[in-house]
């Protein structure tokens, strides 16, 4: 006991203890204790540790961009653009990137279900054989005139199949619609093109080659016809030897106006008048005889009407007249007015005067996609109104809904949801439990876009005829079934003429039959002797496209008739013009993807919510601050939304983005923001498109505040957000 422990002994003991501890806790690498599970069955083309890439088509909007999806061990990991695809040449937008979050969305419909009562969300699972029975029964035992297909905007294989099906049974052709077509005002553009360009077809504006572009409401950098293709054209325009010049005419500064060299905030609905004024002055500047189209133009009246000063008009007209390759583009909210058709014609008349039809930097007609005479036009809102009337009258007995959410994407004033009650049987093929699917009797979910086969015609954005190809990049995660397969199986069950018209064992057989004529066309991105090889190349390349540029050159227009544009008519008693616009991030169906919700809006930086843009001057007059909740009241309805003071909007105009305000559609979308479609009336322009920017509304204070989440500082760059009292 007397022995002392020296410091040295103590350290020795401690060392031995530590070494023992280290030895006993094991020397082997930790991964020794990991087990490895081989595949039960290796997915095709999979090698351990290596990614596999599949080319397919983006289904987030109808533009038809090509994607290359990286997959790893049977899971889709990352989406990129397909570098050889003529529409997007390797680029994608945020919505394309976020398509993965649709695939992995926790709220997907995982199998065939029936709903005990519409809207009850009380679903019971069904076997697919029973689902086939339901569809077959509906097809066999309903008067064909009462069978209706309502489909999304994409001119894809399923539309072809549904068309074949309705033709075979003598039912009305499928109706295609989408909120994007409402905002694009495609019907107006097509009709104006026919009268000015002398031939029907979707005009394609070759922005890449223009040195001065005047865009009248066409918001092509956000969402208009083919945003990725036009964004590419815009960037090429800027990179020319002489940097291209862009002037944007619209009451609210969109992203396109923000990137323009000049923004002309004219009064809503006066775009056509301004175009005529510019045409007249430009013609005078150029000298020579004044085209008859412009003889009746009353410049002082237009200055008064539009709020654009005479100096500005003169300056713009000189700019246009002095340009080598000027281009004028009509589109968007400018055409969504009561005088939309006149506006579109006036703007195209500017092109006719500039003589740029069929020239670099001018106006062309988009190539006709393979295997069709023309891209079938989606329904305009007037046709949709007629469709809803049919539903209300009980003429439609069976309604099939695919690729669209009509309850959300149609103005509430149209009463689609109510009209559904008059349809005895509604079958939805929705991938997600959206508002319309919840009003259906059955949901027979289609695969997600990344799990499915298909092709899609490219309506615009490519210089050559293009058929974009789609293939599954992953095995379907859930017990979903391709709608094409379901319809084919149902047709087989019905038998008779229908089975004879659709004799395909499955979707791929149908697709191969449809692309078969292309095997003969050897002047394309690939060649093959027979269909199997052809289809393998088709999958590998991500589609088929011709080698030759096939833009049609419109006939020159002599502008022999005097043109006038009527003054815009507005509905409602309010003092502010409501300008709904598509959220460039969410689009019509992106609200259920958190990545997109989290992306700040490009102009306001607001995330995860809706807002109303009010000019600070107007807000000050009304005594409204940022984040105040206001009630927007129109003739058609009302809604409550937080205020965002936006200096880049006219004081007499307010704007609300479209994309939020879902009452269903999964956890990320539900109960978030408002839908400006609740406020719209049913005023149409001459082409049958909705005059969606022609509603006048009132603003009422509620006295409440709800903060918007936004990326930009609320204090502002110069501390202006602190308020005067600070």
């Amino acid at each position, binding site marked *: *006991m007397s*022995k*002392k*422990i020296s410091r040295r002994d103590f350290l020795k003991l401690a060392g*031995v203890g530590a070494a*023992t501890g280290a*030895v*006993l806790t*094991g*020397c*082997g*690498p930790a*991964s*020794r*204790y*990991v*087990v*490895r*599970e*081989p*595949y*039960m*069955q*290796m997915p095709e083309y999979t*090698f*351990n*540790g*290596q990614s596999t890439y599949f080319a397919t088509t983006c289904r987030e909007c109808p533009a038809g961009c090509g994607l290359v999806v990286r997959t790893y061990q049977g899971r889709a990991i990352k989406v990129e653009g397909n570098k050889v695809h003529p529409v997007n040449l390797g680029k994608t937008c945020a919505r394309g990137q976020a398509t993965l979050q649709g695939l992995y969305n926790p709220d997907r419909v995982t199998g065939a279900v029936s709903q005990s009562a519409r809207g009850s969300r009380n679903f019971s699972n069904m076997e697919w054989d029973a689902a086939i029975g339901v569809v077959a029964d509906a097809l066999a035992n309903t008067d064909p005139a009462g069978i209706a297909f309502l489909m999304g905007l994409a001119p894809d294989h399923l539309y072809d199949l549904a068309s074949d099906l309705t033709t075979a049974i003598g039912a009305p052709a499928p109706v295609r619609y989408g909120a994007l077509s409402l905002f694009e005002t495609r019907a107006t553009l097509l009709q104006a093109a026919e009268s000015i360009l002398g031939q029907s077809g979707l005009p394609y504006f070759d922005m890449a080659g223009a040195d001065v572009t005047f865009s009248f409401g066409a918001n092509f950098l956000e969402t208009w016809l083919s945003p990725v293709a036009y964004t590419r054209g815009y960037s090429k325009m800027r990179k020319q030897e002489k940097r291209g010049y862009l002037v944007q005419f619209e009451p609210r500064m969109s992203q396109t106006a923000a990137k323009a060299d000049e923004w002309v905030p004219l009064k809503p609905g006066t775009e056509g008048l301004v175009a005529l004024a510019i045409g007249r002055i430009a013609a005078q500047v150029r000298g020579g005889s004044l085209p008859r189209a412009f003889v009746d133009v009353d410049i002082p009246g237009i200055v008064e009407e539009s709020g654009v000063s005479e100096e500005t008009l003169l300056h713009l007209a000189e700019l246009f007249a002095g340009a080598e390759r000027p281009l004028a583009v009509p589109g968007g909210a400018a055409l969504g007015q009561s005088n939309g058709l006149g506006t579109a014609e006036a703007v195209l008349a500017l092109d006719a005067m500039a003589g740029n039809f069929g020239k670099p930097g001018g106006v062309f007609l988009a190539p006709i996609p393979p295997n069709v005479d023309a891209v079938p036009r989606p329904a305009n809102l007037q046709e949709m109104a007629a469709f809803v009337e049919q539903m209300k009258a009980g003429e439609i007995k069976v309604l099939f809904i695919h690729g669209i959410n009509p309850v959300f994407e149609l103005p509430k004033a149209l009463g689609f949801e109510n009209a559904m009650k008059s349809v005895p049987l509604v079958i939805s093929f929705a991938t997600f439990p959206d508002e319309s699917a919840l009003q259906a009797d059955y949901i027979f979910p289609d695969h997600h876009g990344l799990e499915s086969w298909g092709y899609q015609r490219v309506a615009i954005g490519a210089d050559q005829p293009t058929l974009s190809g789609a293939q599954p990049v992953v095995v379907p995660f859930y017990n979903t079934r391709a709608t094409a397969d379901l319809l084919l199986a149902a047709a087989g069950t019905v038998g008779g003429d229908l089975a004879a018209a659709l004799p395909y064992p499955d979707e791929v057989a149908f697709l191969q039959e449809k692309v078969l004529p292309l095997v003969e066309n050897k002047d394309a991105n690939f060649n093959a002797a027979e269909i199997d090889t052809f289809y393998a190349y088709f999958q590998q390349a991500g589609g088929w496209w011709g080698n030759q540029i096939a833009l049609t050159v419109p006939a020159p227009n002599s502008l022999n008739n005097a043109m006038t544009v009527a003054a815009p008519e507005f509905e409602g008693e309010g003092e502010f013009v409501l300008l709904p616009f598509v959220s460039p991030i969410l689009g019509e169906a992106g609200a259920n993807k958190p990545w997109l919700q989290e992306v700040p809006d490009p102009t306001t930086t607001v995330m995860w919510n809706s807002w109303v843009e009010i000019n600070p001057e107007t807000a000050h007059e009304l005594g409204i601050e940022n984040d105040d909740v206001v009630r927007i009241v129109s003739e058609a309805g009302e809604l409550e939304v937080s205020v965002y003071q936006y200096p880049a909007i006219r004081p007499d105009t307010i704007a609300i983005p479209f994309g939020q305000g879902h009452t269903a559609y999964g956890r990320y979308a539900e109960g978030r923001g408002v839908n400006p479609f609740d406020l719209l009336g049913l005023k149409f322009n001459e082409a049958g498109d909705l005059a969606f920017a022609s509603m006048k509304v009132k603003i009422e204070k509620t006295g409440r505040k709800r903060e918007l989440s936004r990326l930009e500082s609320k204090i502002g760059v110069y501390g202006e957000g602190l308020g005067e009292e600070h």
Partner: protein
Amino acid sequence: MIKRIFGVLFSPLGRIGLLIGGLTVLSLAVWGISLTQASPAQPIQFPHNRHVNFGIQCLYCHPGASRGPVAGLPTQTKCWGCHQQMQITQTSELLKPLVQAVESNKPIQWVPVAIVPDFVHFNHRPHIAAGVNCEDCHGDMRQVTIAENPQVFNMGWCLNCHRERTENDPEKRTKLLDCGTCHY
């Protein structure tokens, strides 16, 4: 307090106790080390020797070795492709786990044998491409049942080979002795 503990430890009885304790720790350590070096237990006593002696090539079951980083384990469908045609599959005790796995559609949980730490980026492909044979690293599989490591996969062993094989090629040697070749 600590003085008292040390006092007890250094008493004669304490010393004997310490010795016994020390021996126990030592034997446990030896056992522990031997465990880390022995081949781990596998769900199936897979006889590599028999398969190799039938003339089946390594790359038939581990095709990843010639194409990428990981040699890979065969899928059950690959095993079953041959085994379902053989009488012995249904009767053999040894093959029961395979039959069960296929019938229940559950993957077999193998324990990896030839592994390197996570900070080493090993890739089979360049080794096969350089003409290294499987048995050069993994030993002669005709001799063993479940896989065993004939040597410890440590850096000295890797570098030895890299040195030997690049004796006459200084450029290659620089590349193959560079840290960044494996640690990146």
